[in-house]
């Protein structure tokens, strides 16, 4: 049976969500997305400069992808809701990644304002995925408020530091009934694999792919790592031991038995 992720009422094949920021060009981003075949792709909204002849990014995103706009730039719940409405009016559909950040140094999310935005947008029938710090009680509240998934950070956005929040994310995986998707900070395919081995439902990667010397190959590497980690989780990882446990027979058959 195919291992699909049910999210927002959709069956999602690829557990690698890809962000579209920081690519050196839209054509390169397009090639990367075509190679990795994500089901869900994130985009952002920005003010348009007068006389801007920039290409429309949507023309470079495969039509089969679900577009998920983020609310990047929002500093409180009200701004996040406003950006979500603008995103929907711009044609991104019902999927929205809530991102409320007041701290420009670490870009850490404001969980309280994020929760407020989830409450409002879930009632408006958006499919809401909050980017959050991995806090159990907040994650439970996000789920109760109607979030489709929670997206705890692994490390600060764009830092490529890996799953520094591992212990807390593991608690969410164990205790939260909705999917846990690690978003932000994953720097290498092994980081993504680690998240999947822990039982996370998916990961969202942007910077590590977009700024690689070869983003197309890096995206494929992430895709393979996500598949491997997921398979390992489903297969059931062996438990950790503090002492050796022989994997070969220890009978000393070349020696005489001593009495």
């Amino acid at each position, binding site marked *: 049976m195919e291992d699909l992720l049910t999210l927002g009422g959709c069956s999602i094949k690829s557990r690698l969500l890809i*962000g*579209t*920021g*920081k*690519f050196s060009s*839209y054509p390169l*981003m397009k090639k990367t997305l075509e190679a990795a075949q994500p089901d869900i792709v*994130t*985009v*952002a*909204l*920005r*003010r*348009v400069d*007068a*006389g*801007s*002849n*920039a290409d*429309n*990014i*949507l023309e470079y995103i495969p039509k089969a992808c679900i577009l998920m*706009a*983020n609310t*990047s730039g929002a500093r409180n719940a009200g701004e996040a809701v*406003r950006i979500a*409405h*603008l*995103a929907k*009016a*711009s044609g*991104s559909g019902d999927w929205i990644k809530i991102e409320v950040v007041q701290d420009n140094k670490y870009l850490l999310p404001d969980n309280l304002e994020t929760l407020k935005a989830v409450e409002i947008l879930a009632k408006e029938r958006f499919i809401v995925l909050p980017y959050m710090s991995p806090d159990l009680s907040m994650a439970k509240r996000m789920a109760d408020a109607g979030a489709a998934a929670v997206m705890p950070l692994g490390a600060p*956005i*764009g830092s490529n530091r890996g799953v520094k929040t591992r212990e807390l994310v593991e608690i969410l995986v164990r205790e939260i009934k909705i999917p846990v998707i690690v*978003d*932000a900070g994953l720097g290498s395919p092994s980081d993504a694999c680690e998240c999947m081995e822990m039982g996370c439902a998916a990961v*969202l990667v*942007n*910077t590590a792919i*977009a700024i690689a010397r070869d983003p197309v190959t890096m995206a494929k590497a992430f895709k393979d790592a996500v598949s491997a980690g997921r398979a390992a989780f489903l297969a059931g990882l062996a438990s950790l031991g503090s002492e050796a446990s022989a994997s070969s027979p220890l009978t000393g058959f070349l020696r005489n038995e001593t009495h």
Partner: protein
Amino acid sequence: MIFTLNGKQESLERPLNLDALVAAKGLCPDKIVIEHNFNIISKEDWAKIVLKDQDMIEIISFVGGG
């Protein structure tokens, strides 16, 4: 007459509707969404909205983001 466009004040000598504003700014209508005083205005209604003094306009489009 003064209005705010994407957070910056601009002055206007003659009345302008949103269609004309988009044209004057050299923007492609298919790529943008416009918010007028915190209300999102659909393209069909751009011609009906004539800018007034102190109006707030946001013109937004999609870009790359994670």
